[in-house]
């Protein structure tokens, strides 16, 4: 029988957010390059591709992208702080701060777009 690991603490959630956002962003990257690639054949191709972003579903996906990027950035900063700066006992507060920054950026995007 396999034992379930005890993982419910901020450090693990920071790792999970970093990994999930990283994989999701890696999956998005080819789409991003494809979109940019349409500009090679002139402005019209890129413009028609960009017109897709007016679709509400694509807007929601864009919001997800912005939140994922911020979460990934914050979790990456956590690793750098943890590994390269002297240890600080407020590490969990930093994780909460990173999550808050990602949430705030998400709200700003919603307000700007909406």
């Amino acid at each position: 029988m396999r034992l379930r690991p005890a993982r419910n603490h901020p450090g693990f959630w920071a790792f999970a957010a970093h990994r999930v956002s990283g994989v999701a962003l890696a999956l998005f990257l080819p789409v991003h390059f494809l979109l940019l690639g349409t500009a090679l054949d002139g402005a019209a191709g890129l413009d028609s591709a960009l017109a897709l972003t007016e679709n509400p579903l694509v807007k929601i996906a864009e919001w997800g992208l912005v939140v994922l990027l911020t979460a990934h950035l914050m979790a990456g900063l956590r690793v750098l702080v943890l590994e390269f700066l002297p240890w600080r006992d407020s590490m969990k507060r930093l994780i909460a701060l990173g999550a808050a920054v990602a949430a705030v950026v998400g709200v700003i995007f919603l307000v700007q777009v909406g």
Partner: protein
Amino acid sequence: MAVTGTERPAETMSETGTLSVEVWRGRDDGRFQSFTVPHRANQTVLDIVTWIQRHAEPALAYRFACRVGVCGSCAMTVNGKPRWTCRTHVGKVAVDGHLRIEPLRNLPRLKDLAVDMTPFFEKWQAAEGRFHPTKTRRDPLSTISPSSPKRQAADAGIECINCGVCHAACDVVAWNDDYLGPAALNRAWTLVNDERDGGKRTVLDAVSQGGGCHSCHSHGSCVEHCPVGLNPTRGIAGLKRMTLVGLLSGDAG
């Protein structure tokens, strides 16, 4: 009312109901066996296991020695979390009068609640987690200032009791068979900060191999669960920095 001297509150010794306890029996293909155990005030999880062995199931296998949190023998999984059972009060971990006691995670099971600690100590050795002397008994004692930053870094990790709780809590130990684990790396960190140790280079070489400190994902589960409040993640981060500095300065092989 304040309790003084040998006087103890009457309820300390009286039974305060019963607990339903599920205990893992067998090896990998085992099952849970249920017991009803009298609940007493100030009872530890190890008390529960001992009660079961003495009164209900004499064949129950488990490991303990000192009963006071020094020897590191009695760690088990209690309601899903790795804990030192001798210093874990039932009142703090039982959920609605229920306990589920299993062997430690990430180590081969022997029987019931006892695991084979051999891989744990082999990794300790693979991390060069032993003192490398530089002097003989005829040399004078080294003078180490307790307030020096290096000694303080070593002191912060030195109280490990080898209980295996961090090893059981760690995800990377579960994912990567070669990973040395938080306890072994914590020991390595105390050694590279020990000015009397002559094997700093050997230790850094050992912990920078595949499965060494760079495999740590910094989840911090070891810190969350360490019963004596050590911070292996901090030491592992220190080893990562030290091996990187060694690489950049051409000091590491």
